[in-house]
């Protein structure tokens, strides 16, 4: 039973300010324009962001300026990728508390030292005080998979080559390591940015182009990096199963900040490497996952795919994973 659909999406890969407000105004206009709704027709607003990213306290409150909260609005926030804000909005609509929702994420990942900022999402007692850099943590995961023979550094470079069109795999493999066994191309480019997705209940979709959410689920793995099998990503497998993801999906938009994570995710989600994948342009912190949902929805709304799946991740080394299955 399809009850909620994506009817609008917009993203921007630049954010000049730390509050996100100026970036969000045109993104909202574009997403609402595609949805054919005015901002006063949005029942519920939900965002994902983190103050640590740009060192700006209560930036998610400032960001509400972009909405125009007069008369008062109904609004919520998660300190995760905005894909999780979309989950909250989806539940809100299912519960009958809203018929329309605009979900947005924003972040200025380049404002600070991202590799250090992300240390603060680790266990605050035994891990964060050591300040492990995010790339180093990802490298520990990559080596486990390489040691287990799940794939090779060449396979990882192949993922990078697909991302950076015209890259030659051999040339990539000649590059030096940044955090062994990772090279520079193994980390997706970190970008500033924002994105917005408009959701609507069936009654409000009417004649609009829509990508129906046939399943959505999220799961989390234990926080301790040594407590879980970093190569298996059980939370991604669990989310995919609960969302009803099938191996025959037409196209998938994965949120993989590192090349080895894209390969781990394909396995965890039960997808063949031949599955058509939406390009991952850049890792825009706190909006990239939501943008993957927007990209997958775009495949369905444009008629390029009958079914599409999107994946979002949050936390270190693919700790939290969300899967959405969309259909025409």
């Amino acid at each position, binding site marked *: 039973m399809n009850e909620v659909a994506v009817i609008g999406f917009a993203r921007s890969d630049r954010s*000049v*300010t*730390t*509050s996100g*407000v*100026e970036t969000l*105004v045109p993104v*909202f206009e574009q997403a609402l324009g595609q949805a054919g709704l005015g*901002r006063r027709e949005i029942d519920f607003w939900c965002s994902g962001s983190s103050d*640590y990213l*740009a*060192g*700006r306290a209560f930036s998610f409150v400032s960001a*509400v*300026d*972009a*909405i*125009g*909260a*007069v008369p008062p609005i109904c609004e919520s926030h998660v300190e995760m990728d905005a894909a999780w804000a979309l989950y909250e909005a989806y539940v809100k609509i299912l519960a009958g508390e809203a018929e329309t929702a605009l979900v947005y994420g924003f972040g*200025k990942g380049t*404002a*600070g*030292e991202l*590799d*250090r*900022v992300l*240390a*603060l999402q680790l*266990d*605050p*007692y*035994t*891990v*964060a*005080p*050591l*300040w*492990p*850099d995010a790339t*180093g*943590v990802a*490298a*520990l*995961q990559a*080596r*486990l998979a390489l*040691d287990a023979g799940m794939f090779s550094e060449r396979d990882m470079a192949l993922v990078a080559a697909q991302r950076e069109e015209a890259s030659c795999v051999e040339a990539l493999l000649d590059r030096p*390591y940044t*955090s*062994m*066994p*990772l090279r520079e191309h193994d980390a997706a480019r970190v970008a500033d940015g924002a994105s917005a997705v408009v959701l609507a209940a069936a009654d409000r979709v009417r004649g609009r182009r829509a990508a129906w959410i046939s399943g959505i689920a999220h799961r989390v793995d*234990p926080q*301790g*990096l*040594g*407590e879980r099998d*970093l190569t298996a990503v059980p939370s991604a497998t669990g989310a995919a199963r609960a969302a009803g993801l099938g191996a025959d999906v037409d196209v998938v938009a994965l949120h993989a900040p590192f090349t080895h994570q894209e390969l781990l995710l394909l396995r965890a989600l039960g997808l063949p490497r031949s599955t058509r994948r939406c390009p991952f342009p850049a890792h825009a912190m706190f909006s990239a996952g939501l943008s993957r949902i927007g990209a997958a929805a775009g495949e369905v709304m444009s008629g390029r795919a009958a079914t599409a799946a999107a994946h979002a991740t949050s936390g270190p080394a693919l700790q939290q994973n969300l899967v959405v299955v969309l259909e025409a």
Partner: protein
Amino acid sequence: MDTLSAPLTIAFDYTRSLGPVLGRFMAGLRERRVLGGRTSDGRVHVPPLEYDPVTLTPVTDLVEVSPTGTVVTWTWTDHPREGQPLDRPFGWALIRLDGADTALLHAVDAGSAEVMRTGMRVRIRWAVDRTGHINDIECFEPGDGPPAQDARDGQPAQTARDGPQAQTAREPVTIMTTPIRLHYRHTTSAEEDGYLRALADGRIIGQRCPACRKVYVPPRVCPACGIAPDEVVPVADRGTVTTFCVVNVPFAGQRLTPPYVVAQVLLDGADIPVPHLILGVPAEAVRMGLRVAAVWRDRSAWATTPENIDHFEPSGEPDAPYESFAEHL
């Protein structure tokens, strides 16, 4: 043209309560012992878990494990970052200590990446000054025997518990402090940039919302309409106190001696007040409707900052009637 930007460092000491499990774990580190937590399935977790993931009951069974273990996975960092355990190139590793079933993350002082390998044996190098903190483990070093310091002392760490101060030493640690310092480059919006550059010129500018026509100082996206501002509007450097408070409480970094007044000043031509100091008048004489004028710092000190205006003081004009600012409170 790039908008104005400036470096910004944020620092704060995070203090955290530890609870019975981590409190004992940290107390153990202080006396050079590593404690793991045994869960109902018999597995020993290092660091210990506070709750059993299967039965969901509190973990109470802490057992000592070896300070020596095996690298499960590793990476190498050529450029150590601020706050990391070592300031020379080192390896990060997940290390399974002998007697433990899970791995812990820490630094390995191996000298060179060539030394690192999966399966290598490493042992703890204890910090000289231990406070009951994860940093009591200075790092790990390659080696299969007991930690070097234990050998140097001529006694295994375990005997420390029998000393006269052992009982105090074994009290669980209740609080741990972790200093957090983060560095940013703060960037202004185009509107903020224009506002600050005008201030450097001794001018105050606002911008008008194209929908509701309100003038915002500093200029910003209209929070009522959600629309970017357009028309630039010059605003006077004098205005009306709409509301105020008398600061009586001293605080860290305070630049004035209490009592003093911080007020909302509605500049002539603006629709939103700015907060500023009201000086040159006793605190008890400040009132709603008081007319005030900006006191600028010496022109030679002007920069792209609101600090160019040192404070406001009474202008000598008659008070503004309440109705003239009632809408702006």
